[in-house]
């Protein structure tokens, strides 16, 4: 047996059909989001274009299912009259960029901090535990307000518009910086449990160095909690971004945002359900595909569970 663990994982993953299907779907959605401007150009509608002429005097779109037609595949937004397909694609781009960046940052920070705390123990663990307590007890809302506005005031003149991406980066940093604690907790708990298990004790007794123990005995067992945490964080951050937008602290118009769009659409559940369905379905598919793929990947990484 000379195959590397990576190849083994890949082989196992390829046998898992749901994982492969969802992986392809996730890739497709990410691809669509990344290529949003190109998709919009081919489709022929810009993200800020409005079609007020296709709305009735109450601002509701004419036509079937909220104005679904050959030129507007998902219909029009009530009120502003923008194309929902383009809004969804651009909104996915924003939401994915924020939630993805934030989840990666949070997972990386959480894994490192939690691992260090669990492995070293003692005063390092105590200090990190205390920092975690403080950060957990600070409401995100207040941090968001305290961070976003002064930063913008500092970096942009009173007449300079703040570009959409700046908000996105700030929000991603905020989520990342304040969202790593659950991961750290999970990893720390896992490391403490592992530290005392026979095979680690045995390795230590046989004179293995700390580096060897961490890389060979501990890290392989952290894959599952980290991936579980990651798939838990992604939707949480998408929803969090939407909540912040709702309070005027997230991404602002005219930058499209999936979360904000869903939040606004909810009032139209009775009058224009199509407006709720399209962005919600996009978000649902996105998170669902990611979660399913993650699960398959985790199974592939951790073959003991399949034995």
């Amino acid at each position: 047996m000379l195959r590397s663990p990576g190849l083994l994982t890949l082989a196992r993953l390829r046998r898992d059909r749901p994982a492969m299907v969802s992986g392809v779907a996730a890739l497709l959605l990410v691809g669509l989001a990344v290529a949003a401007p190109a998709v919009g150009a081919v489709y022929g509608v810009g993200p800020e274009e409005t079609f007020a002429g296709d709305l009735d005097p109450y601002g509701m779109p004419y036509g079937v299912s909220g104005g679904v037609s050959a030129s507007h595949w998902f219909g029009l937004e009530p009120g502003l009259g923008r194309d929902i397909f383009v809004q969804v694609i651009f909104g996915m781009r924003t939401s994915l960029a924020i939630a993805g960046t934030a989840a990666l940052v949070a997972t990386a920070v959480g894994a490192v901090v939690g691992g260090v705390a669990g492995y070293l123990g003692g005063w390092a663990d105590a200090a990190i535990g205390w920092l975690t307590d403080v950060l957990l007890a600070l409401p995100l809302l207040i941090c968001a307000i305290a961070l976003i506005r002064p930063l913008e005031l500092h970096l942009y003149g009173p007449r300079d518009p703040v570009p959409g991406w700046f908000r996105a980066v700030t929000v991603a940093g905020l989520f990342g910086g304040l969202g790593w604690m659950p991961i750290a907790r999970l990893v720390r708990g896992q490391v403490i449990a592992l530290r005392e298990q026979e095979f680690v004790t045995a390795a230590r007794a046989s004179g293995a160095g700390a580096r060897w123990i961490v890389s060979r005995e501990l890290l392989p067992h952290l894959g599952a909690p980290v991936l579980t945490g990651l798939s838990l964080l992604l939707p949480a951050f998408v929803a969090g971004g939407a909540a912040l937008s709702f309070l005027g602290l997230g991404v602002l118009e005219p930058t499209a945002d999936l979360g904000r769009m869903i939040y606004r659409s909810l009032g139209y559940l009775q009058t224009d359900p199509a407006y709720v369905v399209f962005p919600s379905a996009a978000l649902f598919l996105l998170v669902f595909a990611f979660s399913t793929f993650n699960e398959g990947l985790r199974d592939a990484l951790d073959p003991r569970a399949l034995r």
Partner: protein
Amino acid sequence: MSGSPAAFVLRRTGRGLLTLAAVSVVTFLMFFAVPRDPAAAMCPKNCDAARLEQIRAQWGLSDPVAVQYAHYVRGVVAGRDLGRAQGGYCPAPCLGYSYVNGEPVIDALARALPVTMSIVLPAAVLWLALGIGLGVAAAARHGSPVDRMIGGFSLAGLALPLYLLGSMFLLLFVYQLGVLPYPHYTALTESPLAWASGLVLPWCTLALLFSAGYIRLTRAQVREAMSADFVRTALAKGLAHRRVVRRHALRPALVPLVTAAGLDVGAALGGTVITEVTFGLYGLGQVTLDAVREDDLPMLMGAVLVAALVVVAANIVVDGLYARIDPRVRAR
């Protein structure tokens, strides 16, 4: 090594107090980091600089931030006189007087906290029962259709935002079918039936969505434990499958479960803004939100401190449970 439970609780409480102090300092600083002026909001229509200064002085807003903080801490510890404009003497623990509501902060919080607790605690019991139950069931029947169905349910739960599911439930059960009343809070002591019927919708919504994470966590942990040597040994010895799951496989899974539950319940008690907004319930989350929107520093400080207190308390409970589940933790 001081392994006695009393010493453990004492140590944790000390750390909790330290955490609260840090949180209060940071909140205070953050409030003043933003260029804002609560006095401007209180100033009448024809406001000007002199009037503004007068209001600032009246509310103690012209003092340096450090002095204001010192006054605040003194109020919490020993009570203080807030002056005529703020309802006179305020006994300890004095959390100040709301700029906006015209009442002591502690009154507003005393109303909001039971609402949040009534939403979160029963919901937490539901979601833990559902999550652990389904998680164990899935792990025990690994690979079966039941496992797949539960897996799909949990993935759907993770992917659905609370406000979407909540709004659909409201539309269906309250507005269309009319089988449930519009969510409202009645004190448990006043009428247990009204309390439960008014909150059953948020409970179910929260339980359905929050259980998803616990299903996945339980399933992963139990499966991992099932493959551990001692469990395999137990199975090999011919012990009943169900007994093995309960005795051996679930126990190691409890550590991460307790961690997650402690964090979730603590955070949710600190304010379930989205739940409260979706169902129109006025708990700690909405109090915090309003305080932020209205630049109401005393209310904000009060809400943040109570939320922090709950989170810290939840942490102490989690750590205590750890020690019970795994005595090695306490020995450190």
